[in-house]
Each structure stands twice: as C-alpha cells, then as structure tokens.
C-alpha cells in the first residue's frame, strides 16, 4: 500500500513530466497505428479494387503495325498461358486536359472503346449517370475512379481533352474501377465511344504515342517478360524493344502507393522520435524521483522492503501513464478512421474503406505499453544499487571526488558560463539521453526542413530531381526549316533567354537490359541547367555516356564500365563517365553528346530547339507567341477543323491540313501540290510550316508533381511543428526538473547574490554544449539520410541545401536555448529562503 502511495505521490508531484510522457506515448501510438494499420488497409484497398475490376495481372501493348498473331501463340505454347484477353488500345503521352478547377493539366492516357473494355476488364461501374442520360450523350466518357476521388470530377461534368491546340469536349458518363491503368505511370484508361476512339487514333500519333494490340493475361510461373519479347522479336524478325509497352500488378501497385509508402515511412520515423523521447523522459523522471526520494527509499529498506518492491513504485506510474497515452492514441485512431480513410483514398486514388484492424491496433498498443514498462523497469531497478545506509546518506557512496573539472581559479570564462559548464561536466552521464533525443529529433527536424524547402514552391523539389531541363519549350522543326536561322529568329522574340539546338532523343535499346533508354542529347552539357552528375562527370566525347542512378543500381553498371546501345540494328559501345539521380523517364534516360547520339542514330539531325524563357515568362504565353510568329505549327494545322468560307481558301486549307498530317505524322519532309479547278491552278507546298510542334513539361508537372509536392510540403510543415513541439516539451521538462533537483544550490547562489537571470542563464548554458554537439551530429546525419532516403526510393539525388541546414541548426540551438532558459523561469517565483529550505 505504501508503495502504491509513493507511486501516486510521484505522479501527482511531477504532473508536468507525467503529462509530457503521456503525450509522447499518445503520439507514438497514434502515429504508429496510423502508419502500420493504414499501410495494410491501403494494400488491401488496392488488392480489393484490383480484384473487383476483373483485371489480369499482366498487360502488354504492341504497336499496331508490329503486332503478329504469333505473339499470342507464344504465350500459349511457351508459357502455357491460354486465357488471354485481346483488344485495341491507344496510348498517348502528355495529353493536356482541363482539370475540375479549369486549369490545364497533362496526363498519360490509355484509350479504349467499351467493347474492348469488356474484353480486358469487367467494366465495374461506380457513380454514373442514368442509362437514358448516357444514351443521349454525344461524346460519353468513362473515367477511372481516381478522377472522382483525387481530381474532384463528377458524373455529368464536361471533361475536355486538348490536342494540337484543339479542344475535344466529353461528358463524364461515370467512373469505373480499373486494375492496371489507374496511375500516370502506365496511363489512366479512358473509355470512349467507337467514333471518338477512331478519331483519337488519327490525332495521337507521335513517336511517343502507341496505338496497337493489348494482350492481358495472368502470367504462369515460367513467364519471363524479357524472354517473351526476345521470342516475339525473333518471330517478327525485328527488334520490338521500342514498340512494346508493358505493365504488371506489382509495378502498378508501386506506382500508386509509392508516395503513401514514403509518408508511412516518415510517420514511422516521427513515431520513433516521439518514442525515443518518451523513453528518455521516463529515464530522466525515474532518476530524478529516485534521487529526490533517496532517504525515503533508505527508510523503506530499513523497514524491510525489498528493492524489487520499491522499484514497483516507479513501475506502477508508467503502467498508468503509458497505458493512458497508448490507449488514447489507439482510441483517437479509431475515432478518426473516416477522416484517415478519406485522406488515404485521396492519395491512393482508390476507395479506402472499412474500419482499422482492431487486433493490430490492440497489438501495437500493448507492445508500446510493454516497451514503456520494460524500459521503466530497467531504470527502476537501479534502486537496488542503494542499500539502506547509502540511501539514507542520499546515495553518497556514489560520489566521486577524484577530479575537480573546470576549476574556477583557472577558468577564463565568465562566472555564469564557468558554473554552467562545470555543472555539465559533473553530470555527463545524464547527457547521453539528451544527445540521443536531440540527435534523433534534430535529424528529423532538419530532414523535414530540407524536404519542406525543396517543396516550398510546390513541385520544385521533385523538378530538381528530374535530371532534365523542365522549364523550357521544346520546339520541333519541320524538315525544311533551318535550325540555325530559326534559332536566331526565336532568340529575338521577347522573353526568350536562350535557345539550344538539340536532338529529340529517340528510344534506344540497351544490350543486356529489358529497360530501353530515352536519350537526352546536348552538344555541351555545360548548357544544361537542371542536369548535374551525382558521381563522375558529363560525357564529353562521342563514346562517352552518363546513366541514371536507377539503371546503375538495378543493372550494376558503374563509371568506367561500357554499355551497348542499339537503334535500328546499329549497335555502339559507350563508356560510362557519370551517374545522375534522375526521375525523368523513370530513371531510364541516358545522356549523350550530339556526336555520341549520331553514332548510334545515324543520319539524324538536331531539329529540336530547346527554348529557355526569361524568369517569370509564362511558357503557355511564350508557346503561343512563337507559334503565331511562325504562322502556326503543323500539328495545329492537322487538327484544325475551323474552315474559311471562300472556295480557294477552303481548298488551300484542306490541302494544308493534309500536308500537315503527312508532315507531322508520317515523316514526310517536303511536299508540293497543285490543284486545277477549271482553268485555275491553285499551288502550294509544305514549306509554309517551320514548326512541327511545340511541347513542354509544364502540364505533366502540374498533374503529377505539384499534388505530390504540395502534400509533401504540408506533411513536412506539420512535422516541423510537431518535432519542435517535442523538443520543446522535452527541454522544458528537463530544465524545470533541473531547477527542482538543484533548488538548494540555486537558493544558496541566490543568497550569494546571483540573480534569477544569472541562474536561468546558467541552466540554459549548461545544456548548450550537449545541444550544439547533438545538432552538429544531426546535421551530418541528415546529409546522409537525405541522400539515402531519396536514393533508395526514387534512385535520385535530393539536393542537400547547406544554408537550410545552417538555418535549421541556428534555429534549433536558439530554440533550445530559449526553451531551457524560459522553462527555468520558476526560479523567479521562489524566494531565496524557500529555495534553500524547501
């Protein structure tokens, strides 16, 4: 009974510390349960949605003219796959569309008609218009549920796709569930009417687009994709590498859940920070309580209580505090399930439903309580180190008088600094806990600060990791246009800062790899603005190449190794001179000099003008200006359905449109025509077009990167506050308990004439060396963490901003100083008499 009373007394006496531990345990349980139970829930939501969609696990899209029926037979004969769904699909890259808020965004789309959809998947419909309403629609469109959950579209809304400057309005008939095509990776699958599908096959025909035959199947155990494509290539007697696209359930799941996994990882890391902090607080509180109650412990021991029994007094406290904190965390999770489900749905793009797994929640809660109690028991057992006589002497046995550290007569510091550091040196052991806490929390805080800084303007952080110049217009020239003179002309347009003549890099096969490469080509990589090697250097000679970190990691290729590229039967070897962190094209990009590129893609000429705008100039506006300056682009001409009234002009317009289609879609370089109507001859040629098309990454960045950037920014912003709060709570409690522990010494010093400010300064300064060391260690740790984190997840290199780290360090140090200083303020409230005699 006496023991339980002592326990309750400890709880009541140091309410602030007990509440601090409770809050930290609450956050530990809350965040850990959110992270783990929802990770499982998201996986389950994906799996269930996938199953409902009726999708198979694998999909291969062959470019139409390359497809042979034999490819399907290979699946059957060589891999025993008999159940293969087949249909025609159009894959289109970077297609502009209007978002629900009217902004222009860009997607990768897959288009099918309803008939094909029923062959490939079960066409499970969600929210939709009535059948009568759908019947009445001129251009009905079915979108994956992602567009409803994430992008806020509704049945009956207009959904407008923009191609070649022309708008194609659709009405959303409803939403449906799809298995393999609900992300930007492989493209969102849109279901169109037969007419609209046919119309789009004539519009989306660039080298990046792909209309062809889709095979969908569940792979057998013996199925190997690379081997299968090799067999198909053999059967077709040509390399199919660049004419096939594939997706599988594993890749789709990774595509859709990557960022959720990152957030889960970050939440787990945050809960680790709070957990380490709560353990430290427990250690700190038990040490203080034992020290405070040393004589009482001695009395109890003298009365015959065993040290084990006395240790229990300190244990009960943490069973109560830990249980309340952890259970509250679990209850908060359960109560917030609908909100959390909604948040997860928005990030995943599929409906996350249902309650959390109560068994898992109970397990996590119990584990946290057990960990807290076990740690408390370990520390509480130190009571046994104090037999009655020692305890009655306030544990004096343990004092060591061997060395006077930092004697005042030799100190050159001010008295407050001297006394502060003296106090620190005399109690170094207790600093280990503070160091662990501040290093852990400081690393998390600096990482959050770095990530927040990278994402402060939306997608900036991810753009910096792209490994390509993004803030540019890519102007493709017609075959008849002279790149140099066009470049000069564009340079004169206001708002243009720089124009580079480059190759529009084509797909290249990489020998020994199933992952084809897209070439990024520069005459001189010194001109690139967002491309920086992580290791090694840029390629300078025609036999040199730089590759992405992902390819380096997955294929085991390093600087100095050689790599073989192939294009249309031409194979060339290159030496790797550099490795770059790159998100561009999933890290498959290779970087070649102009001459290096021309070795493997023979007879190609650089006909791409990379236009760099002045700061603040809108790419959309600049695109319009350039297009108007050159009388429109061939692509615009090919899709322009507005016709003039006059017969001559109508004939000329039709001819121009035909020319534009031939030029932009069939590789025709030069074209002359003459049309005779009666005795009149109407002439024209293709040379009226200078520009084939103009593109930019702006739309795709808005669609794919900005939402991720904004979520990450919000997340890290909250994390910054949370971690600062944790650091503040820990230090304020330590500082306040330092006042309580040393109240007599502080009272004596007040009696000697030290002011409250002097003593508060001493307490704050006492922790400074430990805090500074911890912050420095955290700064070094965060450099490695930042590099490891982004490298491991995206195989890219996040920039580690040293100024941000320095600002973060200064903030942490100043913040810690003021928290400890202000928390020691209770010195002010106690008179010198009370301090001495309390």
């Amino acid at each position: 009974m006496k023991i339980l009373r002592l326990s309750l007394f400890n709880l009541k006496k140091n309410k602030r510390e007990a509440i601090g531990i409770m809050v930290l345990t609450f956050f530990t349980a809350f965040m850990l349960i959110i992270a783990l139970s929802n990770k499982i829930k998201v996986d389950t939501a994906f799996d269930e949605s996938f199953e409902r969609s009726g999708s198979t696990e694998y999909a291969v899209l062959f470019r139409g003219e390359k497809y042979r029926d034999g490819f399907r037979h290979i699946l059957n004969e060589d891999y025993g796959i008999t159940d293969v769904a087949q249909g025609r699909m159009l894959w289109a890259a970077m297609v502009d569309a209007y978002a629900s808020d009217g902004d222009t965004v860009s997607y990768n789309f897959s288009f099918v008609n309803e008939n094909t959809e029923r062959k490939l998947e079960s066409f499970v419909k969600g929210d939709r218009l009535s059948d009568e309403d759908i019947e009445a629609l001129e251009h009905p469109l079915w979108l994956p549920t992602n567009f409803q959950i994430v992008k806020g579209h509704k049945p009956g809304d207009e959904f407008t796709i923009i191609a070649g400057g022309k708008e194609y309005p659709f009405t959303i008939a409803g939403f449906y569930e799809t298995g393999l095509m609900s992300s930007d990776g492989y493209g969102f699958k849109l279901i169109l009417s037969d007419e609209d599908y046919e119309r789009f096959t004539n519009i989306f025909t660039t080298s990046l687009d792909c209309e062809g035959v889709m095979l969908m199947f569940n792979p057998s155990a013996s199925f190997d994709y690379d081997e299968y494509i090799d067999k198909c290539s053999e059967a077709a007697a040509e390399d199919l590498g660049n004419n096939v696209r594939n997706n599988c359930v594993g890749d789709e799941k990774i595509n859709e859940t990557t960022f959720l996994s990152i957030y889960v990882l970050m939440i787990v890391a945050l809960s680790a920070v709070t957990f380490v902090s709560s353990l430290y607080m427990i250690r700190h509180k038990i040490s203080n309580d034992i020290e405070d109650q040393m004589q009482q412990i001695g009395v109890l021991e003298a009365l015959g209580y065993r040290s084990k029994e006395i240790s229990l007094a300190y244990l009960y406290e943490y069973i109560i505090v830990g249980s309340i904190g952890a259970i509250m965390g679990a209850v908060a999770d359960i109560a917030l399930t609908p909100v959390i489900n909604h948040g997860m749905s928005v990030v995943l793009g599929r409906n996350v439903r249902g309650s959390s797994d109560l068994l898992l929640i109970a397990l996590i809660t119990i584990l946290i309580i057990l960990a807290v109690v076990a740690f408390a028991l370990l520390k509480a057992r130190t009571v046994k180190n104090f037999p009655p006589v020692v305890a009655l002497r306030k544990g004096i046995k343990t004092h060591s008088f061997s060395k006077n550290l930092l004697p005042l007569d030799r100190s050159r510091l001010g008295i407050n600094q001297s006394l502060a550091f003296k106090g620190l040196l005399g109690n170094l052991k207790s600093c280990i806990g503070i160091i662990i806490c501040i290093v852990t929390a400081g690393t998390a805080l600096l990482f959050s600060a770095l990530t927040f800084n990278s994402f402060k303007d939306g997608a900036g952080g991810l753009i910096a990791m792209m490994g390509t110049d993004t803030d540019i217009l890519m102007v493709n020239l017609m075959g008849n246009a002279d790149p140099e003179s066009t470049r000069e002309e564009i340079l004169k347009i206001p708002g243009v800062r720089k124009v580079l003549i480059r190759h529009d890099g084509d797909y290249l096969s990489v020998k020994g790899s199933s992952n084809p490469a897209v070439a990024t080509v520069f005459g001189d990589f010194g001109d690139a603005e967002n491309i920086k090697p992580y290791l090694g250097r840029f390629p300078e000679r025609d036999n040199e190449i730089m590759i992405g970190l992902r390819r380096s990691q997955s294929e085991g290729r390093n600087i100095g190794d050689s790599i073989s590229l192939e294009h249309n039967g031409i194979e060339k070897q290159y030496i790797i001179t550099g490795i770059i962190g790159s998100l561009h094209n999933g890290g498959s990009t290779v970087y070649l000099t102009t001459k290096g590129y021309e070795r493997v893609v023979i007879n190609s000429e650089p006909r791409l003008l990379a236009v760099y705008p002045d700061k603040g100039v809108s790419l959309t506006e600049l695109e319009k200006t350039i297009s108007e300056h050159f009388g429109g682009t061939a692509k615009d001409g090919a899709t322009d359905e507005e016709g003039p009234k006059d017969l001559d002009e109508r004939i000329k317009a039709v001819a121009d449109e035909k020319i534009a289609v031939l030029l932009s879609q069939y590789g025709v370089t030069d074209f002359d025509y003459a049309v005779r109507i009666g005795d009149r001859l109407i002439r024209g040629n293709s040379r009226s077009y200078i520009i084939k098309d103009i593109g930019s990454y702006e739309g795709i960045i808005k669609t794919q990167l900005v939402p991720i950037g904004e979520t990450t920014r919000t997340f890290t912003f909250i994390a910054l506050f949370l971690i600062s709060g944790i650091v503040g709570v820990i230090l304020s409690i330590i500082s306040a308990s330092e006042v309580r522990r040393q109240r007599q010494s502080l009272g004596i010093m007040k009696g000697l004439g030290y002011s409250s400010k002097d003593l508060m300064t001493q307490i704050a300064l006492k922790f400074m060396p430990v805090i500074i060391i911890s912050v420095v260690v955290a700064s070094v740790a965060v450099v490695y963490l930042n590099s490891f984190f982004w490298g491991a997840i995206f195989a890219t290199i996040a920039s580690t901003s040293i100024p941000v780290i320095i600002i973060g360090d200064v903030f942490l140090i100043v913040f810690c100083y003021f928290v400890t200083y202000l928390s020691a303020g209770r010195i002010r409230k106690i008179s010198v008499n009370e301090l001495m005699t309390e």
Partner: protein
Amino acid sequence: MASFILQTNKLCKSFSNGGTLQHVIKNLDLEIVEGDFTVIMGSSGSGKSTLLYALSGMDKPGMGKVIFDGKEIQGFSNDELAVFRRGNCGFVFQSIYLLENQTVLDNVLTGALIVQKNSKELVDRAKELLLKTGLKEEDFNKYPNQLSGGEAQRVGIVRAVINNPRILFADEPTGQLNSASGKDVLDIFTEVHKNGQSIVMVTHDIKTALRGTRVLYLRDGGIVGDYRMCPYGEDDEKERRAGLTEFLDKMGW
C-alpha cells in the same frame, strides 16, 4: 554622530499559517551602526531569523521600510535585491549551505566571481583567507562532504567575506558545530570584526552573543531590549558574561 548602515521603519512581516495570518515582526524600528557587531537574541519563534532575512534583502518585508546606507530596499525586485546582496552583504548560515558539487576553493570563488573579475590576486586572497581560518592547502580541492562541520563553516565564512561586504549577516553560525569548532569559528568572527566589519548575527547561545558589541532582544516581533558591550577581548570575560546574563535574565531568557 554614529552612522547607521541599516535602519528599519515600522517593519512588519507576516506568514499565513493554515489560513490564519501570523504576525512575526510587528512595526519594528531599528538602527544598526556601521562597525558594530550586533547580536539578535530571543526565544524560539520570536522572529530572529525572519528579521535577519528581511534586513539582508534575502526576503521581502510585508510592510515598512528597510533602509540600507540611506537607500530603501523594500521595494526592490528579486533581481535588484540579488544585485544589492552581491555588492553589500555576506552571509553565514547555520546549515552552512556549501555547494556540494564544488570544491572548497570553488565554493569561495563562486561567491567572489559574481562581483569581482577572475584574477590571480583574487585567487591568492581566497587562499590566504582560507589559510587564516585554519584550513590547509590540501583542503582547497576537497568537496564539502569531505570536511568536518567546523571546516565547512570556515569555508562558509571565507565565502561570505571574500567580497569585503559592507555588512556580514550570520544566522546561528555555530548552531551545528561542537564547542571547539564553534569557538574557532567565533574567533574568526571576532577577528573579522576587529578589522572593521559590520556584523549582524542571530543566536540563542550566550557564548556566541558575548562576541558582539550590542545585543538586541526580540520578543513577539518587537525589540524589547538593547544591551551594549565593548569589543570582545577588551574587558574581563567573566564580568562581560555576568553583565549579559543579567540583561538576558531581565528579558526573561
């Protein structure tokens, strides 16, 4: 005309005791003459220590004035009082109150360095004072727990006088010491007083009170007796003791 280093005017101090206000010091008027060795005596609970702490700025009076060298200090903030104490007062406590985690020399310097700059002269003076009190050089690096009560109190006195305070306050400085140690400590006080140090000391011990030049007797929060003596050692000790005993008897001691 004697100059007063410390005066009080209608000084009051009360404590709340279970909801009841207990008036410990009541309208007390007092003058302490510079250079005097003033001893405050009285029965237990008469308010001796309370008066000492109010006079020294260790505690704030409830009402009335405390005038130090012509300056009223009762309205000072806690930090102003701290600055006042460091420049003008030295303290010797019954419980000694050395800083446990500091050596003998550091304890003395902790008191000194808040006022003076660290210098060889200061350290030499601290060592010299410690030696004068009978401590040995090997004691300088000892911690308080390694000292006897008498040794510890000598350190306490050196710490109190190292800054040459205008006035030295002592609260039962020999209360925890045996008679031999107590005598040694009192000899130090006498020596210090001979050098012109003003001292205000609270005690209930006649042997200690004999060292003073003036004895004030406190009862029910007011001074009821004021007895003057010549400096210790200048008269016959037996007569001195008899005179003081007679005074105390009259006071009802």
